[in-house]
């Protein structure tokens, strides 16, 4: 009978933290075993231990950090510029119907062009320097932020805007107290999308032409048949993508403390803690 009783809150929490890692761990173990026995040739997929070893070696020489740094700098710069522009135009078109009429249809047309289709043109414009990659990231990041900001603003309850007017808020105050906070959940969704896109574009950008960055590291490794380094680069991208997504989620928790969704999350985790 005791086995049927629900586990204690502490155990339930531990289980919830550990359980998601169970499947990846099993797969990793299987991979390691198959590689060691020789079922998977090292040329095709090296063992996890070999990849880890490659990572340690590269980290020790400082090469890994150099590539990681330049990739992060590109993604960061491109994201900042693109997201800022998206935010500015999203707000402008959201609150100013004249600006919307003037600009929105052009943005919608440009949006349908896949950023990767522009690579030949981008190389002609910027050569293979930093600007080319930053530009690509910028373009990719702009649209999700723009669209979500714009729709977030349009989705605000008109009753709240009217209330702002009746209660004597100035236009500037309506923007800062009503419009921006009201659109914030939607803006943050746009930012999460944009972060994902930023990494994808960067990978392609760095593999086309670069002299540093994780994409370059992978490309270079291909020349020397270093499968372990290639796989390491792929895993690094996954890690960086996950990291930026977690960052965006942390941002949501910080900027939307009022949102019932976040409050519920905070409450349920406190309910699970043994103190309650």
């Amino acid at each position, binding site marked *: 009978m005791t086995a049927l009783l629900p586990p204690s809150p502490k155990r339930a929490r531990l289980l919830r933290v550990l359980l998601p890692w169970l499947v990846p761990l099993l797969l990793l173990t299987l991979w390691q075993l198959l590689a060691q026995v020789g079922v998977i040739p090292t040329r095709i997929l090296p063992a996890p231990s070999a990849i880890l070893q490659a990572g340690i070696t590269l980290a020790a020489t400082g090469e890994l950090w150099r590539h990681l740094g330049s990739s992060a700098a590109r993604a960061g710069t491109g994201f900042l510029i693109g997201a800022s522009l998206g935010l500015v135009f999203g707000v402008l078109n959201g609150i100013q119907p004249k600006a919307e009429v003037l600009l929105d249809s052009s943005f919608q047309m440009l949006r349908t062009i896949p950023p990767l289709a522009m690579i030949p043109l981008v190389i002609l414009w910027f050569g293979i320097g930093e600007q080319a990659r930053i530009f690509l990231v910028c373009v990719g990041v702009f649209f999700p932020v723009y669209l979500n900001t714009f729709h977030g603003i349009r989705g605000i309850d008109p*009753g709240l805007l009217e209330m702002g007017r*009746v*209660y004597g*808020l100035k236009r500037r105050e309506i923007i800062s107290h009503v419009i921006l*906070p009201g659109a*914030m959940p939607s803006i943050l969704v746009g930012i999460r999308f944009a972060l994902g896109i930023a990494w994808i574009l960067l990978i392609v950008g760095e593999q086309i032409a670069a002299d540093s960055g994780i994409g370059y590291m992978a490309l270079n490794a291909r020349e020397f048949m270093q499968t372990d380094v290639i796989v390491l680069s792929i895993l690094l991208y996954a890690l960086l993508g996950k990291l930026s997504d977690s960052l965006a989620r942390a941002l949501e928790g910080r900027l939307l403390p*009022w*949102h019932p969704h976040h*409050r519920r999350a905070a409450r349920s985790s406190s309910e699970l803690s043994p103190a309650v």
Partner: protein
Amino acid sequence: MTIPAVGCHLQTRGLSKSFGSKQVLHAINLSLEPGSFVAVVGRSGCGKSTLLRLLSGLDPASTGEVVINGQPLRGLNREARIMFQDGRLLPWKTVLENVGLGVRGNWRHHARELLQEVGLRDRADDWISQLSGGQRQRVALAKALITRPRLMLLDEPLGALDALTRIEMQQLIETLWLEQGFTAILVTHDVEEAVTLADRVLVLEEGRIAHDVLNDLKRPRRRDDPGFARLSGEILDTILQRGQGNAESPQHPQGSRTQRSAPARSGWNGFGAPAATGISTLSP
């Protein structure tokens, strides 16, 4: 003209509103005493909310004007605060911040006092989504009161609340009105609510004031009081009979103080309070 200390004097002159070809309000003439509590009742679509929006300056009149303390209203009515049916509170601000929204200077102390008055002192730092419907309307009330408005426009503020909460809120509104002395206009479809709170009940029918009823029952008013029941019944009857297209002189109980007034076509000429108490019937 003497301007009263707190409540403002409100008049409308030939106030009309059309949306496209549809005329929603027909030449409304009104004069409200400073500090009075007036209820506007009627079926949905009779134009009562439109009237309130014109009085607040949110919508411009098609013809005619609103006069506040002798001055014609241009743009937004700065004397007025509206309390909306849906509260219209900002979910991303705390209860206290909502109360103080748009107030200049140091408002926090006063906002806390008001929250205490509406019985929500210990909820000051909560989010709006943590409150019940009735509590939200209490916050909306505190928020409307913080600038000490001289005209309070209540747009079915209790329409979405359950019966018990409504009664509580009615008492709260009455208490605050007696305390602060603002002029209040309550739009409602609940006749009993109108009779509970208002000194004067206007029945709006198809954009015209069809009846103007003075209510001098003693406060606090009780629903089981015979006078209360009779007055509510009379008003309800007139609304319903009119609605059925039975416009020929509505029946009134024996002894009802009925007063005939000017024909509807020219509108009720209501500068100054009507002379008698009871229903004034506008028969065609």
